[in-house]
Structure formats: structure tokens, C-alpha cells
């Protein structure tokens, strides 16, 4: 009896959120699939007509020479960003997990790059990377690491590394905070025991920290992956996908197809759906690691 009543109450409390999810996620996801199978153009908004064209949009997208470029850029951008965000974040987390004056204050100051609007970070970096007036080139010149100015944002060879650097900078704080939380959960007695056994700093990291940090590492990497694949603001503001599509990723390309130029909403939707597919694969991997914990809570 009580249980039955509680179930109705639960659904009543859930109803607004459920309705919201259906309307603002369910409908768009379904609509996006439907759009990707139609020829959806600006005209469709006035006439309401969007003829069904089957898989034409997918064929057009896959046959576009930009497709390969966008996939490759997305992969390089994601892998390089995650690798450096994670290693730098981990090093900083280990460094700041030691007790020393101002440790907490300094650590929380480092959160700032993560809290800033991405457009702000993008704008600042765009100015710092400016070929003629940017501080990066001025600094490289000052310390003698480069003789001429590097065309960070105007040379197709430099633009991708440039946006990756910006994205790494943005992602370090997130990795730092979560890994720091994970490190604090490791009992200090384990380190004391390892030290008694004569383990050096590297051995303690290798045999205590690293294995015990595994679950947190998995969460950080998976979330990083899911979020990095769809990075949009940073690239749009720093390079706009250029020069010559050198920084075009699946996300920026999907946006450009739909909104910037051709208004080919059908093709934009097709690229978007491919992105959903990729994100879902990584998402499911993440959920597998989250699932065990959820069960734990439910007991």
C-alpha cells in the first residue's frame, strides 16, 4: 500500500522534468533524424515542405572531401587535448595534494580558466596568438626560441596546434579538481606503509597512487572525451574553423552546414547524428563505470 502511494508521488514529482526531457531532448533527437532524411533548406521554413530524400544527405556528407578532414581534425584535437589535459592535471593534482602553505588558495585560483566563458578564453588567446602583436610571439622572440613571428592562426599547419593548446589550457582545471579529489580519498596509511617498506616517491606513485586512482581516472577520461569531441566555442572564436578548414571539426562543420552559409539543415543534421553516434559509444563506456556505483547507492 505505502509503496504504491509512494510510486505515484514519485512520478508526480518527476513529471515536470520528464516532460521537459521529452520535449527538449526527445523531440529534437527524433526531429534531427527526420531532418537528416529530408532536403531541409531555408525555403522549408516558409513553405513547410521538406521532401524526403532518404540517405542522400548522408551520402553528400560522406562524399564531401571535408568529411575526412573534419574527422581527422576531431580525432587529433580530442586525443591531444585529453592527453595533455590529463597528464598536466594529474601532475598538478599530485603536487597540490602535499601539505604546504597556500596550497588550497592556489589550487582554487587555478579553477578560474575553467569557469570563464569559453568565448572569453577564446578571445584572450586569439589576441595572445596574434602574429604581429601577440604576446606569445613576443615572448618566444625574447627568450630566443624563435627568430621570426609564428603565424599561429593564419597558417594551416599551426592553427590546429594553436586551438589544441587553448583547449588544453581550458581543460587542466577540471582534471586537476577531480583527480585531486580522488587522491585525497586514498588513505595516507598506505603511503606510510609503502614508505616503511622503503618505496621511493616514484614507486609510491606507481604502486599506490596510480592503481587506486584508476576509477577516478576512468571517469575523468571518459567525461573529457565526451566533452572534447563536441567542443565548439573555442574553435569558433579562435579560428572559426579556418584557415582553409585546418581547424574544422565535426562540430563546427555541422554548425556551418546548418547556419553559416548554405543553411543545409538536412546535411547539418546528418553530421550531427554521426556525432551523436560517436558520443553515445563513449557515453556507454562511461556509464558502464558509473553503473556499479549507482547500484551501490541503490541498496
Amino acid at each position, binding site marked *: 500500500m505505502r509503496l504504491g502511494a*509512494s*510510486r505515484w508521488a*514519485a512520478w508526480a*514529482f518527476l513529471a*515536470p*522534468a520528464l516532460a*521537459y*526531457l521529452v520535449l527538449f*531532448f526527445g*523531440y*529534437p533527437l527524433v*526531429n534531427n533524424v527526420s*531532418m537528416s532524411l529530408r532536403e531541409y533548406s531555408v525555403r522549408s521554413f516558409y513553405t513547410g515542405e521538406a521532401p524526403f530524400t532518404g540517405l542522400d544527405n548522408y551520402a553528400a556528407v560522406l562524399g564531401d572531401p571535408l568529411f575526412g578532414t573534419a574527422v581527422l581534425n576531431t580525432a587529433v584535437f580530442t586525443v591531444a587535448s585529453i592527453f595533455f589535459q590529463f597528464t598536466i592535471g594529474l601532475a598538478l593534482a599530485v*603536487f597540490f595534494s*602535499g601539505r*604546504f*602553505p*597556500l*596550497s588550497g588558495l*592556489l589550487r582554487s*585560483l*587555478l579553477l*578560474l*580558466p575553467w*569557469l*570563464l*566563458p569559453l568565448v*572569453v*578564453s577564446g578571445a*584572450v*588567446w586569439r*589576441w*595572445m596568438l596574434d602574429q*604581429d*602583436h601577440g604576446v606569445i610571439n613576443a615572448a618566444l622572440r625574447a627568450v630566443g626560441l624563435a627568430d621570426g613571428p609564428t603565424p599561429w592562426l593564419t597558417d594551416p599547419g599551426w592553427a590546429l596546434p594553436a586551438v589544441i593548446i587553448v583547449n588544453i*589550457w581550458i581543460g587542466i582545471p577540471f582534471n586537476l*579538481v*577531480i583527480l585531486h579529489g580522488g587522491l585525497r580519498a586514498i588513505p595516507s596509511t598506505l603511503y606510510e606503509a609503502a614508505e616503511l617498506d622503503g618505496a621511493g616517491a616514484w614507486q609510491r606513485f606507481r604502486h599506490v597512487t596510480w592503481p587506486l586512482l584508476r576509477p*577516478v581516472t576512468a*571517469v*575523468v577520461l571518459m567525461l573529457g572525451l565526451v566533452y572534447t569531441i*563536441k567542443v*565548439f*566555442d573555442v574553435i569558433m*572564436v579562435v579560428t572559426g574553423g579556418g584557415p582553409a578548414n585546418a581547424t574544422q571539426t565535426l*562540430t563546427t562543420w*555541422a*554548425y556551418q552546414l*546548418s547556419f553559416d552559409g548554405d543553411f543545409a*539543415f538536412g546535411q547539418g*543534421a546528418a553530421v550531427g*547524428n554521426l*556525432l*551523436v553516434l560517436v*558520443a553515445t559509444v563513449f557515453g556507454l563506456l562511461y*556509464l558502464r563505470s558509473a553503473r556499479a*556505483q*549507482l*547500484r551501490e547507492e*541503490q541498496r
Partner: protein
Amino acid sequence: MTRYLRTAAGIAVVIVLLFPLYWMVNASLQPAGSLLKPSPDWLPLDGTLDGYRSALSTQGGHLLASLAVAAGTVVVSLLIAMPAAYALAQLRFRGVQAFVFALLIVQMVPGPVMANSLYTLFSEFSLIDSYLGLVLADSTATIPFAVLVLRAFMLSIPRELSEAARVDGAGYWRVFSSIIVPVSRNAMVTAGLFSFLFAWADFLFAVTLTTGRAIEPITVGIYRFIGNQSADWNAVLATAVLASIPAAVLLVIAQRYVVAGVTGGALKD
């Protein structure tokens, strides 16, 4: 002694990593002309507030638009997320796991997919160029996050508390409004702050769901400002500084909430 060495190293790390922020402030205070010198001025010695004057006169309205959208998003998100989190954390029913999974999954949907579809939906209901449209769109990102953060907190409220009230004859709504909501104040602050920050920083929905005629949030303002051929960089960066204020305030006033939010949204390790 080594402790102080570590502090020194820590300060060095902070200086390096926060240098872009210093540079933003530095450049925003320089006269437009001196930004174009061959070697940059490392300190704003002949500083001027011209950039800020220009930022406020051209971008002031955009700041207000963002403020309105962000405030609206906080209200909508909390109104929808609070009851949901209560049900998911405190009431026993089948489907809790499925719902939480759904929340995790939808957070992974790439933004352009949402923007693409919401554009067609909104153009049908005349929600393009409206505050309501932007609030509803931004809430797609904040509601799932808010539910997860609030739920993570509410799991720690002992069920005995609400069950005792039930035995005393309180209805579910009464339990929710007079026990759960007051006790969850800190978690609400966390979820609200993050909703505000997200909506304030949103660029994708702002650029796709507005035409720039009626409403233009500050992120789009900065974007178009840069795209402008004769980009006035000191004014652009002054605008960037102004747009950073919510984040800076949040970090100073509410930093313990920030850490709670970062970890809560990731479904505690």
C-alpha cells in the same frame, strides 16, 4: 623549508597558468594604439579606461541580456530539477536507475544537434529571438546537471527524516517543501550557480537561436566584436573582463560550492 619551496613552486605554476587572465586585464587597460606596437607593454603604465567606456557603451545591453537569460535559466532549472531530484533520491520506485541514466546520456548530446533541432522547433513557435526561447534552450544543459547535483546531495539526507514526517501525517508535498527544500539550501546554491554560469557563458544557443536584432547575449557580442574588421582589441578585452565577472565572483565568494559542483556533476567517484 621544503614546504616554502613548494609554495614558491605553486605560485610559479599559478602565475604561468593564469598569465592569459593577466594579459586580458593588461591589454584591456591600454590605449588602443599601444596594443599595436611591435613589442607589447608588460604593464599598463599609461593605463586608460577608454576600452571599458567603449565596451559599456557598445556591449552594455548585451551584458543585461545575458543577465536576464542567466537569471531565468536558474529559476526554470531549479523549479524543474528540485522535485525531480527529491523523487530520485528519497522516494522508492522502479525506474530510478533508468531515469538517472537518461540524465547522464542527454548530457552527452552534442550542442549543434540540439541547436539544429531547436531552431526548427522554435521557428514554429516564434521563440527565435526571445528570452523565453534562450532560457528554455539553456535549460537543456542545466536541468540534467542540476538534477544530478541535487540528487547526489539529497541521497545524504536520511530517509528516516521524511518517513517520520510521513508517519506524522505530512503529505509528500509538505515533506518536500518544509523538510527537503530547506535542508538542501547549499546544494540549491551549487546547482543555481552552475546554471547561472552556464547560461551566462552559452554561445552556441545564443548564436543560433537569435538573429542579433532583438536580443544578443554578451558571448555573441564578443564574437561579432572580434569578427569586426577593425577589431578594437582593448575594447574587446575590456568586454571580456566584464564578461568574466560572474566567474570571478563565484570563485571568490562560493569556491567550496564550485568544487562540490564539479565533482557532483560527474557522479561522485
